């Protein structure tokens, strides 16, 4: 059985620009335009434009909206001010992960959550059925009507600021504001998935092409280029940002994944709380760590890890990191072997290749200070 791939409002722009289109999470998306390494470097040194319109957006509104989100997510939504954003996780009762997400407080009793493209249907079912007992929380799936463009890199602020009808320089990390960018009404969010300063611009689907063209035209002189999913992956890998489906999924719990900083049991009850409290008390058996290769070889998702011939974990992401010029990866290893510098071997095509646990992020983040 195969269902047709979905397309973002920018599909025709990507094809016209000569992008190589690939299936990703049920969507037909650009994996690269000029080349993954070139796009990666352009983002680190100038500014990259990413079509991430495939991501899902749900809104929840009403006197019960806060209670619904507190029950669904692991982080403390009550700590959010209007205009503030929070990274968080949706868990199953077992403490394993439905999805990771960002939570936006749009108004006193109004929130938006942004979820991964491949999880939209699953997440929608999860959030609506799990909160049926909570009164006065109205959910709306805004995914189809919403486009999303990430503008990332040291020149992102000048580019977005130059097109916006409001100041963006005062917007702190994980804060957002409403404004027009290139005449398109947007939510200007100081967030991203690259480790660079930058923005994610939410726009109506029918304004997304206008916004994309305005950004490309205004940014050309500064070196703005469209960036595909290939470089999005190497950029996030250098930051050790988890990717759902690779590093985290419904078999990994939030604590072993290193997401304990967004698990706040003191806030009250939420799905997965008891299981995660137990994991926290006993200590996770394995941990998600960064690894770097010592031997020349590339670790890839699914490759086994061993030490002295004994299986001790598994690689969840791996590639070449263009900005660190090393073969790097993310892996689950037994807790006792999670210390930086620990020597390990990655089994690659039947051969044990030397690697070690690395300090992360691999590349120093340049994100804006929290405001």
């Amino acid at each position, binding site marked *: 059985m195969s269902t047709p791939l979905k397309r973002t409002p920018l599909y025709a722009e990507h094809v016209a620009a000569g992008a190589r289109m690939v299936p990703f999470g049920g969507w037909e998306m650009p994996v690269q335009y000029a080349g993954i*390494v070139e796009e990666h470097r352009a983002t680190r040194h100038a500014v990259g434009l990413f079509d991430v319109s495939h991501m899902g957006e749900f809104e929840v509104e009403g006197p019960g909206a806060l209670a619904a989100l507190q029950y669904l997510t692991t982080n403390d939504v009550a700590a959010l001010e209007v205009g503030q954003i929070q990274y968080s996780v949706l868990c199953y009762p077992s403490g394993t992960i439905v999805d990771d997400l960002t939570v936006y407080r749009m108004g006193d009793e109004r929130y938006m959550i942004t979820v991964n493209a491949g999880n939209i249907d699953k997440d929608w079912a999860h959030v609506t059925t799990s909160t049926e007992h909570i009164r006065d929380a109205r959910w709306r799936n805004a995914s189809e009507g919403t486009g999303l463009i990430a503008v990332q890199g040291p020149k992102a602020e000048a580019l977005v600021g130059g097109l916006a009808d409001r100041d963006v320089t005062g917007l702190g990390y994980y804060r957002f504001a409403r404004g027009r960018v290139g005449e398109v009404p947007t939510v200007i969010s100081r967030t991203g998935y690259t480790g660079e300063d930058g923005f994610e611009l939410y726009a109506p689907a029918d304004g997304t092409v206008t916004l994309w063209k305005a950004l490309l035209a205004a940014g050309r002189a500064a070196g703005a280029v469209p960036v595909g999913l290939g470089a999005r992956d190497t950029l996030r890998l250098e930051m050790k940002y988890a990717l759902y489906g690779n590093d985290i999924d419904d078999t990994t719990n939030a604590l072993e994944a290193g997401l304990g900083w967004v698990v706040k049991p003191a806030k009250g009850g939420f799905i997965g709380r008891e299981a995660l409290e137990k994991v926290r008390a006993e200590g996770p058996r394995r941990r998600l760590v960064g690894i770097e290769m010592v031997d*020349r070889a590339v670790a*890839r998702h699914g490759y086994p890890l061993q030490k002295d011939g004994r299986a001790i974990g598994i690689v969840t992401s791996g590639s*070449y990191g263009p900005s660190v010029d090393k*073969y790097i990866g993310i892996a689950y290893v037994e807790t006792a072997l999670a210390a930086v510098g620990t020597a390990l071997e990655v089994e690659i095509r039947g051969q044990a290749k030397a690697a070690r646990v690395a300090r992360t992020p691999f590349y120093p983040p340049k994100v804006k200070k929290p405001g």
Partner: protein
Amino acid sequence: MANVPKDLRYTREHEWAKQEGDRVRVGITAYAQEQLGDVVFVELPKVGAKVTAAKNFGVVESVKAVSDLFAPISGEVAEVNGELAQKPEIVNQDPYGKGWMLVVKPSSKGEWDQLLTAQQYEELIAQGGH
């Protein structure tokens, strides 16, 4: 359309072979490196290793993908391009020149004629490469 030099022979898996006296130089085609994207790692056999026609002799990895390399002909590896270990991107920059991979001393003569001609290879990639 990717460059397909007339004086080379080709495999269906996108390797090229070049007769140099009694030896054969081997690499991957311009089409192959375009399809792969940025090459970040190349794993090759050692000098003296035996390779077998149509069998895997190494691996080329791009940022996103791992691809096997297939020998155009059987024989013994006489030379290996050691520069690719440090600078795998040469495969993208100059696939028919500095990006070569092996020089093989062929062990049988008949295999050369089994390889695709430039025209046959052009037809293959015009159909999408499969």
